[in-house]
């Protein structure tokens, strides 16, 4: 390489490095300030990491057997869990297709004085796993839940985090 090219290579590397450092510090600052994560876990809310008296998003799993629907209205009550802390959520409205027990969801709303989360929007968060219905059926028949061992892995990860 000629010295001239070496200089220009250095310039290119310097530009990339400068970009990485600047953006990295910027993201770090934003994350420490307002937060980049789109939702807080029930644990973070219990620890007081989420700002109070303002609209936030809470994310976690819908606890098995916790969904209670009001027969006369669209109101639904369920427990959001990250396997460490639980958060009761009340929502009035239409739920997305993927909403079900054991499914990850993200609810937007506000904590009331009783510590109940009054949601105005519920979004379903689906995982990265896909499988044909026959496989899911077979797993269920075999006495494993639809996610098989993966669910236990997930639960383990949640706890170890």
């Amino acid at each position: 390489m000629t010295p001239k090219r070496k200089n220009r290579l250095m310039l290119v590397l310097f530009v990339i490095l400068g970009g990485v450092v600047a953006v990295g510090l910027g993201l770090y600052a934003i994350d420490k300030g307002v937060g980049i994560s789109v939702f807080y876990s029930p644990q973070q809310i219990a620890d007081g990491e989420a700002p109070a008296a303002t609209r936030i998003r809470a994310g976690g799993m819908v606890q098995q057997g916790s969904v209670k629907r009001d027969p006369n209205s669209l109101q639904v009550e369920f427990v959001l869990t990250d396997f460490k802390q639980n958060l009761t959520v009340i929502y009035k409205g239409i739920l997305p297709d993927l909403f079900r027990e054991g499914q990850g969801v993200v609810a937007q709303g506000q904590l009331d004085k009783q510590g109940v989360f009054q949601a105005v929007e519920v979004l379903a968060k689906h995982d990265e796993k896909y499988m044909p219905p026959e496989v899911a059926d077979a797993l269920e028949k075999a006495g494993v839940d639809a996610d098989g061992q993966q669910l236990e892995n997930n639960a383990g990860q949640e706890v170890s985090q």
Partner: protein
Amino acid sequence: MNMQKKQLMPKWFYQMASPKWCYKITGKLLPLFSCTGLALLLLGTVWALLYAPEDYQQGNSFRIIYIHVPSAILAQSIYVTMALAGAVGIIWKMKIADMVAYACAPVGASMAFLALITGAIWGKPTWGSWWVWDARLTSMLILLFLYFGVMALYAAMGKPSRAARATAILSLVGLVNIPIIKYSVEWWNTLHQPATFSLTEKPAMPVQMWLPLLVMVLGFYCFFATAMMLRLRNEILSREKRTNWVKELVTKV
């Protein structure tokens, strides 16, 4: 030039620097990539829509993955290609590299746009929202804007050599966005799920689902190669229009 002694790159790299040689070789490669691409895309689409099994939770709506994932992968790969070509253009002052970077931008922008649109269409029924300002979606939107920025900057500069230099620096700075897109789902809580595929682990999807996806991804790569080479050859002809070989080529027809 006495670069015969210390050649950093293989021989074809220096041959590529000749517009005439590049025009010739891409002319030979073009039918190969366009035919393979067309065959793969047809095969992949039919396979994905008719023969791949449906998902146990999402049913048939998950099939949009066969467009969404390839376009998202391509949007990022094309960006890296564009930035690297820009770097080669800066370091070696190679006109062909500048033209490759120029040829990449609109193709990449359309892929980023396709990924965002299919994501929104998919997000509405499954998540319950067209758009969420989470880290993955936002960084992907920034990628689209980076492409727009590169294209606008190129169009705003008069001289091609200066335009190439400026856009190369912009695309190199924007390169930092690529790992952010990739790791956004791991670094922060996002509504977007983590990657189904990784190089080190088994895909979280059975083989009859991911094989057509692989075919689609390869088909998209061939499509990109075809579109990029077509644009590159056009650009070579228009920039070299005063040379004898182009005059000969044009008058021959």
